[in-house]
Structures are given as C-alpha cells and as structure tokens.
C-alpha cells in the first residue's frame, strides 16, 4: 500500500476483506478500501468489475457475505440504506437519483422532509423547503426561479448537482457518487467535478465511482482499481501518472492490442476513417482534461 504517508487522519469509512456472493456468482472477493474525511477516493473499474455491488454494499443495500465494515473506526452492520444514511453515508445514484415528475423541492427533501407543528397537525414545511432548495441551488450556480418545476425538465448535470447539493445539505459525512459524470457533456461534467471538490473542502469523504480516469484524476486523492470483483491496486495520486492509470484500468495488454489493431487499420485506405476517429478522440480527451483542470483551478 502506498498511502501510508498520511496516517495521521483515520479513515472515516473502511471495509476490510469484504466479499459478496449471489448464489454461485462471486461479485466481490476480498475487497478492502477506505476513504478519509476531506479526501476523494476514486473507485475505477470497467463495466462488470463489481463497482455497483461494492457501492450497494457500502450504501447498505447489500450486506457483505464476508468481511468487516467500519465507520468512524467502529464496526457497523447496515440493514438498509436508511441505516447507512443515518450514519451520514449518502449515496447519489447515476440514474436513480431523482424522480422526474416530482418538483425540485419535493425531490430535494424526499425522505428527510422538514416538518413543523405538533402531531396530528405535523406537516411538511413547504415554504422552508422551497426556500432552502432555491438557496442551495443558487450556491451551485443554478438559478431556480420556480422550485415547483419538475426535475424532469432539468438537464443531466443539473440533476446530479441537485442530488449532490441535497446530500451535502443533509450533513453527509461520506458521499458516494455512482458515475455522476457518465452521461454528461464535457462542460456539465466539469460542473459536477467542481462540486466534488467543494464537498471535499467541506471535510466530506467522497467515494467517486467512474470508469473515466480523465474525470477521476483531477479530483482524486487516491485511486482504487477494481477488476473482475477484486482490488487490482490502490494508488496515491503522487505515485501514478494519468497515462498509467488509464492503462491499468483498461488492462494494459488489452489496450496495447487495441492500439495495434487501430494502427494497422489506419495503414490501409479504409483506415482513414479510423484515423480521423482517433484524432477526434484525442481532441475530445484534451478538452476533457482541460475542463477538469479548469474546474480544479476555479477553486
């Protein structure tokens, strides 16, 4: 392990040697990872690597078949996402974060509604909810004229921002973000990355799940690479350049084979299109890194 130099801060969330089996399927095997307060742990892995299972285990949806789960140094055993939430572990899911037909303020407070009055007249404090929603979104640079607007009318980045703002507002100590940038354009992804850094600066431990190393690298403090249900490696940022991260994530050998294939294709006439494609991909990559770096510098 390469992160021993910052031993001074204890991890806020840590799992040790957890495994999860679904019948005969081994979804996770001997996985250990942690996040410290004020740090971003990036969880990288290709499709099918076991990211979703790991997130759901951390979020309290699944119980690990084997292994231990520590929160603030104490062993915990979550029976439901609500359990985890009560400890301050908030999870923002990629596609399930928001309910499109519900208004922004209803979404914002779903499951944690502020109330006023005494039973049986205890009621949802609607005006407070609307006001807080408007304020919190304004802090993120999104102007909500009408909090009654259905969330379905917001863009993908705005929805993710609402979800992150919600988790931060409710005092999350650990924020688990499931591919928040996956479906977003370059600019919107930059917006979301900026909020990850904001959350980190507030002392929140962030677990940022992604399969895009270019999004992970600018914000991450250390990188856990998950492959085929096990931990492939856990690297501090200082120890691993971006190129190496990309290569490790995809599986070095596979990527090499792919680049050979592309190179040989570009040598032929029909390969011109492939060449153009490769150039376009490179250009896209450059803008993505720029945007991400821009987001970093903005802080």
């Amino acid at each position, binding site marked *: 392990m390469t992160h021993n130099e910052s031993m001074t801060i204890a991890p806020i969330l840590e799992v040790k040697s957890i495994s999860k089996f679904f019948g005969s399927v081994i979804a996770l095997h001997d996985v250990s990872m942690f996040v410290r307060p004020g740090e971003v742990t990036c969880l990288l892995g290709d499709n099918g690597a076991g990211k979703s299972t790991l997130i759901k285990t951390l*979020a309290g*949806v699944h119980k690990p078949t084997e292994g231990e789960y520590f929160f603030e140094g104490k062993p915990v055993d979550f029976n*439901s*996402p*609500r359990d985890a*939430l*009560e400890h301050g572990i908030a*999870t923002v*899911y990629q596609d*399930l*974060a*928001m*309910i*499109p*037909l*519900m208004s922004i303020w*209803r979404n914002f*407070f*779903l*499951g*944690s*509604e502020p*109330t006023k009055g005494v039973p049986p007249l*205890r*009621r*949802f404090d*609607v005006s407070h909810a609307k006001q807080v929603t408007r*304020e919190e979104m*304004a*802090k993120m640079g*999104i*102007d*909500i*004229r*009408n909090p*009654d*607007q*259905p969330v*379905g*009318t917001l863009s993908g980045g705005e929805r993710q921002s609402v979800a992150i703002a919600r988790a931060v507002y409710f005092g999350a100590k650990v924020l688990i973000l499931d591919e928040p940038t996956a479906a977003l354009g370059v600019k919107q992804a930059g917006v979301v990355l900026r909020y990850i850094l*904001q959350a980190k*600066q507030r002392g929140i431990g962030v677990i940022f799940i992604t399969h895009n190393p270019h999004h992970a690298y600018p914000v991450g403090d250390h990188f856990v690479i998950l492959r085929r249900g096990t931990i492939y490696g856990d690297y501090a940022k200082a120890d691993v350049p971006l190129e190496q991260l990309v290569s490790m994530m995809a599986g070095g050998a596979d990527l090499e084979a792919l680049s050979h294939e592309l190179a040989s294709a570009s040598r032929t006439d029909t390969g011109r299109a492939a060449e153009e494609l490769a150039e376009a991909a490179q250009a896209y990559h450059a803008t993505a890194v720029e945007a991400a770096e821009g987001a970093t510098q903005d802080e």
Partner: protein
Amino acid sequence: MTTTEEAPAPPETADERVRRVGGLANLMTRPEIGALAALVLVWVFFAIVAFDNNFVSMAATASILNRAAPLGILAVAVALLMIAGEFDLSVGSIIGFAGIAIMLMVTPGSAGGFGLALGPAIVIALLITLAAGLFNGILVVTTKLPSFIITLGGLFIFRGLATAAARIRTARTQLGGFGDVPGFDILNALLGQKIDIFGAAFDIAILWWIGLTALATWVLLRTKVGNWIYGVGGDTNASRNVGVPVNRLVVSLFVLTAFAAFLVALIQVTQFGGADSLRGEQQEFNAIIAAVVGGVLLTGGYGSVVGAAAGALIFALVQQGITITGVDADWFKVFVGAILVLAVIFNNYIRQRAQKR
C-alpha cells in the same frame, strides 16, 4: 468559500429555460385540471340535453351527489394507492366482505350470527376488514409481484369468502335487520341519515366524502407521508435509497384502502339496513376509473385526490344523466369507457409535457 459564495441574489444572466415556464403551463401541469374541465363540460352537456328532464334541479343534484359519495370515498384511498404506484382490484369485493362481516357480528345467534352488541361488532368487523388489506399489502411487498395480480386474486378470494361465510352461518347471502340493532340510531345519524335541503334529500355520506377528500389532499400535498407517496410512485428504488420506508408505506396504503371499503360498507349497511355479499361489485373498476379520469397516472407518481373526487362526480353525472334522459342504460357503459380512454390520452399528453418542459 463561505464569504464569497454567500450571494443570495441570483445573477441576472439566469438560465433562459427557467423563465419560459409561464403561468398557464404551470396550471396545465396540475393533475386535476383536466378532470375539472371535463366535469364542467359533462355537466353543461347534460344540462342542455336533459334540461327538460329536470337535470338542473335540487333533486337531480342530490341524486348525483348521493351516487358519487360512496364511489368518491373509495376513490380517495384508491387514488393515494395508485399515486404510490399500486393497484387494488379487490376493493369492491372487500365492500361485500365488510358488509357481511358487520352483519354476521350483529345477527343474533339463533339466526346463525354472533349476536354482538353494535360497538364490539363494528370494531371486530373493522379489524377483520383491515386484515384483508394487510393481507394484500404484505403479499405485494413480500412477493414483489405486481399488485394487479395479487389483488385480482383478492377480488375472487374476498367475494368468495363473504358469500361462503354468510351461507355457512345463515344459509343466506343477504342479511337484514340492521335497523333493529340497539344503537342503530346513533350510527344512522352519523352515516346513514339524509339531510333535507330545499326539499331534496342529501346523504350525510357526502360530508364524509368531502371531509376525507380534504384530509387526503392535505396529507398528500402538505405532509411527509404525502411526499413519500409521490416518491414511491415515481421511483420505488430511488425513494428507498433516500430512506423512504417503502414497504411500510405500501402496506399502510392497502390497509387504508380496506378502511375506505369498510366505511362504504358501513354506510351502505346503515342506509339499506343490511348487507348483500354481492355489494360493491365492479366498484374496484369504478374507483380506478374515477382516479384515472381525475388525472392519476396508471404508472403512479402523479395525480391528486381532488381529481379523483372530480372523477367520481363525473361518473355519477353520466350515470344520472343517462338515467334521467331515459336513454338505454347500455349507453352509460359506452360513455364511461369513452371518457376513460380520453382521460388517459389527455393525461399522457400532460405528463410528457411536464417531463420535457
């Protein structure tokens, strides 16, 4: 960050997409707006067509509201359940089941009943009926099967149980004599009496209907539980993930639906002085129609109780209008079916607008 970010006034270079949502568009996204418009249209239609048949009169109005009240009470609970994304096809059967339960409890032992006093009889019958709702809810939550299928089973189970229990105990499926039970007068004053206004007899059940609609509207729009109902209907998983007690909520709503069926049964037992195991037939569909016509989405997550009340009223208007004009009653079904399909098409359009700005 703490000082620089504290600018509550949003910048004037606001997102232009936010502004475009005008007042009319907002009004159009209210779930009950279609039903209220349809209500006015249908009333005007019959007011013109059936004017000579005294459609616009106190007596006809009382008749319409008296028809709408039991369906409306049922539709309140059914609408909440449907907004939460579930169905209850057994609610009509539970009306018959509850009615028989009440009557079996009060019928003297010599006639095959249990001969209980009115108070304990009602409490026990209520508990049995709520258990039916609990059965539906727990089965739906534990099996994770569509509630459509579970409660379709319930539709037959509870109707069959009501008929079988009545026949085994009393050898009949219609039980009378409720008016002779001591304490009936109090119950009648609460649930069964008619109130005379300008010579027309209005059922007191109308007040129950209005009260429950108001209460349910308040719960839906202004309480935590109401927010959960919308959330669970919109996306069960997302709601569970943010900590909404989904299973508890769904089971409670099934119990609430059974409670509404019990209340309707008790009102009818009081009004008619007895129960029939076949009472409430097709009311499950009528309640669903009222809810859907009232703007509740079949897929859940959207709708209102006021809309469902308007739906029940439209149902009763059409029924009364067809009856009063002397048109063959077969046309009633055609009319209701057409209104249902139109309402769903309209709702679908509204929902797509709401989702895509």
